[in-house]
């Protein structure tokens, strides 16, 4: 990608040819560039999964953390320095399985971060087990008789918890993916973007074509502030709606609610300990 400041030159990308991560990576770089972000002020926090390597291929600040734990880390990065743009990236297992509890509570907190989930309905990095979003009947070497559990519905979970931005897109549609990512990052508050992609090596069911056949665009007429309608859309799992389902502009962010920023908007690293006040507190115990 010429002239894109987030492009890493001279790197060997570890994904399989045809992997959905490629277009997502390009869409991300496009998005960051169009938002005129400075790489120095952008932090991408990733977990562990094939898509987790995305952060290796972006030129910006990066914290590649533990499987399932990028959301708490991202929340704290933003809280420590709200001037940073913070994106947390994970796979469906990373974000909805290992990290499920953190997803729920981050939605409650509403930090101003963007959570991007590469949802390919399988565990690719560990070579082909079911993921929380795998469809029923999906067989693997572990789920030998086919998945019997109900697939996790991240959009419904998000909307029911009043997440302030909930969207789904398909990696195969790069322009639309960029558009949604841009809106998500611009949005002030917690943004959840679930990106359908295919895993060419380990998921022979939910292929590129399968996704194309099982999605339909959310109609223009949809009012994204209508939570009940958004939930209805989220419950459609025969043909998944793609687009922005729900936006709530009214929730204050986690950072806005922090008393630490009541009397100063300096990031935490730029503050001195008030020793006089400390002495006063101690003297109050005499």
């Amino acid at each position, binding site marked *: 990608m010429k002239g894109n400041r987030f492009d890493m030159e001279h790197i060997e990308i570890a994904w399989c040819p045809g992997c959905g991560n490629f277009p997502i990576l390009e869409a991300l770089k496009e998005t960051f560039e169009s938002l005129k972000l400075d790489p120095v002020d952008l932090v991408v926090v990733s977990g562990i999964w094939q898509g987790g390597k995305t952060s290796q291929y972006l030129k910006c*600040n990066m914290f590649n953390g533990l499987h399932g734990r990028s959301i708490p880390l991202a929340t704290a990065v*933003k809280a420590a320095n709200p001037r940073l743009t913070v994106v947390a990236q994970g796979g469906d297992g990373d974000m909805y399985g290992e990290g499920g509890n953190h997803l729920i509570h981050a939605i409650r907190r509403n930090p101003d971060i963007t959570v991007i989930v590469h949802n390919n309905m399988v565990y690719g990095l560990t070579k082909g087990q079911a993921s929380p979003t795998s469809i029923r009947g999906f067989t693997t070497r572990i789920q030998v008789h086919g998945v019997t559990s109900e697939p996790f519905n991240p959009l419904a979970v998000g909307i029911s918890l009043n997440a302030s931005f909930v969207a789904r897109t398909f990696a195969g549609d790069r322009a639309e993916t960029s558009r949604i990512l841009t809106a998500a990052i611009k949005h002030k508050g917690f943004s959840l973007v679930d990106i359908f992609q295919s895993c060419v090596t380990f998921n022979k069911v939910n292929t590129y074509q399968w996704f194309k056949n099982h999605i339909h665009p959310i109609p223009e007429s949809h009012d994204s502030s209508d939570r009940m309608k958004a939930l209805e859309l989220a419950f459609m799992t025969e043909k998944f709606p793609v687009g922005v389902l729900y936006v709530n502009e009214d929730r204050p962010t986690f950072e806005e609610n922090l008393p*630490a920023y009541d009397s100063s908007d300096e*990031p935490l*690293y730029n503050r001195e300990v008030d020793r006089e006040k400390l002495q006063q507190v101690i003297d109050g115990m005499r």
Partner: protein
Amino acid sequence: MPKSDERDVTIVLAGQAGQGIQTIGSILTMVLKKSGYQVFSTKEYMSRIRGGSNSTLIRVGHERVVANVGRIDILVLLDDGAIDHLASRISPETLIIGEKENLQTSYEIVDVPFTGIAKKSGGKIYANTVAIAALFGALEGEFRVLEEYLTDYFQKKGETVVSGNLEAARQGHRTGGELRSSGKITFHLEKNPKTANEILISGGDAVALGAISGGCRFISSYPMSPATAVLTFMAGQDSRFGIVVEQAEDEIAAVNMAIGAWYAGGRAMVTTSGGGFALMGEGISLAGVTESPLVVHVGQRPGPATGMATRTEQADLDLVLYAGHGEFPRIIYAPGRIEEAFKLTHRAFDMADKYQIPVFVLTDQYFIDSHYCVPDLDTGTAVTENHTVQTLADYKRYAFTDDGISPRGIPGFGDGLVCMDSHEHTEDGHITEEIELRNRMMEKRMGKMGLIAHDSIPPTLIGPEQYRVLVLCWGSNYHIVAEAVALLKKDDIAVLHFSQVFPLPPEISDYLEKADKTILVENNYAGQFERLVRTYAGIAVGHSIRQYDGRPFCSEALAKKILPILPPP
């Protein structure tokens, strides 16, 4: 009753949860201190909100009192269920005070009708104030001090509450005076005006204040006894000092948040107990490989698993020493004195920042919940060392340097990019599996232990330099062991206390070599510190005294255990 030349008096308040023992204890200790008495208090309680049996021990003296004892001089019974619980500590000399009407026991009770007197002053609700005032009066406390304190304490609740309490206090104080004039209480302790102005502080408070002093700006934790005390204190100070205080959804979130905060430049800590810490293992390992500073306060309690949630033990040393898969450096502090907890917690932040490692502050329920008087906490000269660098465009987070410590940049501060990776990584923080890089990075990280070993806190020797017997201890046992040894009144026993348990200070060998006999005292079954000493200093300690019943040692009982081990004169 202790005789008039005894150095201190012990009072135990005992009753059910919900009867106000802790309130009585905290007000009484404060007004006693303001009167010029040295006070020490510690509490033992069951893991319940109502019922059961809890007690608070208060020691009052002219000289400093700082350790747990078993002896009870005055037992204030709010519930007779507590008697069985404390039976082993009651002696013929113990004076038992209580409201005879409400108590059924064969022990002789001096009747002090707390609720009866309270009702006359305006209501049953003032019973606790009556109890406080009675004891205060019995200990020759001036009413003026109590009046001033109670007025201030209840001010926010309005005039009626204030005057009701003051009336109850007046009546109670008079009753206390009658206990003296009737000859039931005869001892006399000198007051010291200097003591009146000392700080009355708990171990938990000291850890929290030390954290603030050390520049802590972020604390993320999941509530867990006994470590919640630190979180609560910080929460009360968040606006004043600009600290982010967040109750995490679980301990895994807590530790990952703390690491995220450090990454973005905020000094962060977590506070937890053994069971919560057990969940943080992977996070500790993350701090290790990413060379992230991290401060973890572990307030120990008996395990395994849920154990005894409100009691004390020193059995998580091994856990804290080995937590986190893989190999990486760490430091473990285990303060023994309240002033030390303040200093060491502050130091933990500076050391974490300097060496880019996890640093642990290891305490326990007994330490966190104990209060005593301290002349001052050294805040004036305490400077926070800040090791963050402003990055240049070609910045590499893990650049190889001569001493193995790479300058630590943070995102958004300078022109460089800061990349950290939980994988093995290159100098600029990206994933690698290359043999040479892996070896160099391991050696870089582990090489820091060499530097850390020179930045040690030596153990503290208490007693004669020419000793024959050396009693070793660590963490909260400092004062108890010191007092136990002092009770033996011998001139050839010294105590060696470790407030840094890892890495083991190198001086240990010299100290142990000089001793004919070595005894190690700790609150766990397997002798975890003893094992650490054997592993890292190659020295086998001669004798062990271990307790694992969830209670702290008592100085007199400990002295009795040490005595038979001593060599003949």
